[in-house]
């Protein structure tokens, strides 16, 4: 048993060495008698481990991926859900903020003119080219809305209520060809009639302003405000309407025709206000935005200033009560029976334009045929110029019954 004895000897020797090593290392404690050995080993094995880790990293990654797969799927689903929810929230917030700003500006404008308004949201829109341009708003008779009330936006006139349901109402827009409103040039007493052009207005963006006195010059860039109807139905006075952009000079014509760009952006109507009580006194030109200085500030700044001014006076709104009359309701009924085209005819006759109907038709095509490039250029120019116009003076003038559209 040579092998066995040798083997036992070897084993005993090795075990003894191991025990000695253990004893030495254990007793040395922190002194690290075997420090150099450990350092050498860590140098050798450290390199090998680094290489090994680098070589097996793909395997490690793969196994880790496999191990995490079930949870990863759930995590991905959860994150997707959360992502969608957050995105919704962000867009809703943005929308809410935009609406709140509009509402703020509109209240400012209403406070400036001392109108009492009911804010509303546009819920539907209907456009039949050239005939009809109406929107549906989410307030109705339950909110105090009656037919023939003025509707305005944060910057100017929008239209009027043509039909009021229990909780929704129909608004005929200013660009509707069947609609016309009494208007006045800013800073003067020159009266006229504003009417929609429909498709002929170039994408529903222009409105026609006919000045009743053909001798009065109309300057490009002058601004138009509503003149106000009897008992402020359907239009309250002083609401900004638009800015004159082009003037047709036809010698010998009874009226003078200009084309104006409305302050309100009819393609992006969102928050509007229905005037449920007119001011006791005509605000004249006070509601118009401030005239820009020669180095023109940006339109946003003007609007903000406007809103600020309005907020100061906003508390005074509550003074006025609702002026209700049977007259407008009857007019609305008659209109609903008669239909829009007839109403338009009637209105033209009332405004004295039937006599010049032929000339009027002759005038309209240029507006329709106007090259698009030219129109776009003008739009840009208009935007840049802001609301340039004459300075507002406070010439006083008694209110008068004017050519309100539709009836009475």
């Amino acid at each position: 048993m040579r092998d066995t004895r040798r083997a036992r000897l070897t084993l005993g020797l090795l075990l003894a060495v191991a025990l000695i090593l253990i004893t030495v290392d254990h007793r040395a404690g922190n002194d690290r008698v075997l420090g150099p050995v450990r350092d050498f080993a860590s140098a050798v094995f450290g390199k090998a481990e680094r290489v090994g880790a680098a070589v097996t990293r793909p395997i490690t990654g793969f196994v880790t991926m496999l191990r995490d797969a079930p949870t990863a799927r759930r995590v991905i689903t959860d994150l997707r859900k959360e992502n969608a929810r957050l995105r919704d929230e962000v867009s809703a917030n943005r929308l809410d903020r935009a609406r709140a700003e509009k509402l703020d500006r509109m209240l400012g404008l209403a406070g400036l003119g001392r109108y009492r308004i009911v804010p509303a949201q546009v819920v539907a829109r209907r456009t039949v080219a050239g005939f009809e341009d109406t929107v549906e708003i989410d307030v109705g008779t339950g909110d105090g809305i009656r037919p023939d009330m003025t509707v305005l936006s944060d910057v100017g006139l929008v239209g009027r209520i043509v039909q009021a349901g229990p909780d929704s109402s129909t608004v005929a827009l200013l660009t509707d060809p069947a609609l016309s409103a009494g208007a006045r040039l800013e800073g003067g007493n020159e009266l006229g009639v504003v009417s929609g052009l429909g498709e002929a207005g170039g994408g529903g963006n222009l409105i026609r302003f006919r000045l009743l006195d053909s001798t009065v010059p109309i300057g490009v860039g002058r601004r138009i405000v509503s003149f106000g109807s009897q008992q402020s139905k359907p239009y309250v006075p002083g609401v900004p309407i638009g800015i004159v952009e082009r003037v047709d000079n036809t010698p010998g014509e009874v009226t003078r025709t200009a084309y104006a760009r409305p302050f309100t952006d009819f393609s992006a109507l969102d928050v509007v206000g229905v005037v449920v009580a007119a001011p006791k006194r005509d605000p004249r030109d006070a509601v118009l935005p401030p005239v820009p200085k020669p180095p023109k500030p940006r339109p946003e700044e003007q609007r903000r200033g406007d809103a600020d001014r309005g907020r100061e006076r906003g508390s005074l709104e509550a003074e006025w009560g609702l002026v209700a009359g049977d007259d407008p309701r009857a007019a609305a009924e008659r209109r609903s029976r008669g239909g829009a085209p007839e109403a338009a005819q009637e209105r033209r006759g009332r405004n004295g334009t039937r006599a010049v109907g032929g000339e009027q038709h002759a005038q309209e095509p240029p507006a329709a045929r106007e090259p698009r490039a030219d129109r776009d250029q003008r739009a840009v120019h208009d935007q840049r110029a802001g609301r340039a116009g004459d300075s507002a003076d406070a010439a006083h003038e008694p209110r008068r019954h004017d050519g309100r559209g539709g009836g009475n």
Partner: protein
Amino acid sequence: MARNLVAALLLFVALVLQVSVVNRLLFSWAPDLVLLTVAALATRRGPVPGAVIGFCGGLAYDLLPPSNHTLGQYALVLCFLGYAAGRVGDRLPLLAVAACAIAAPGLLAGLGALLGAPGITWPVLATAWPRAAICNLVAAPLVLRAVKVTHGGHRRRAGGGELVPSWRRGMA
């Protein structure tokens, strides 16, 4: 000589794999590759080479960088287990490796407890030992197979019968 080099290489690979792959992937469910390699090599080589391999492998394992235990623990345990596996391994290599796989965690823990290593208590041992034993048992056949393939067998070279132990073969 070549066999010794192959054995050293196998040990080295097992050491590196143990710390850089197995421990990182399986955490507490990692089998002890070094122990299994030592046991498998011992079954192929006999008790004395097994004891030497166990001592060297254990010492290397003690010196492997992320270590905080007393130097020599693994050397002692693996030296003893290598010798034992070499004694039994000729006849029943798989059984020898399996016995090593089961016994080793307990022996290491016991030695650690004797040396005053913190954290070794009966409840910990009751969960950790079976778990480590199971992991080692699962990995044992694979390691044995791998060692057999790479290291070759001395039985073929010796030309002896399957059931003749090495020390008897030397006499025959």
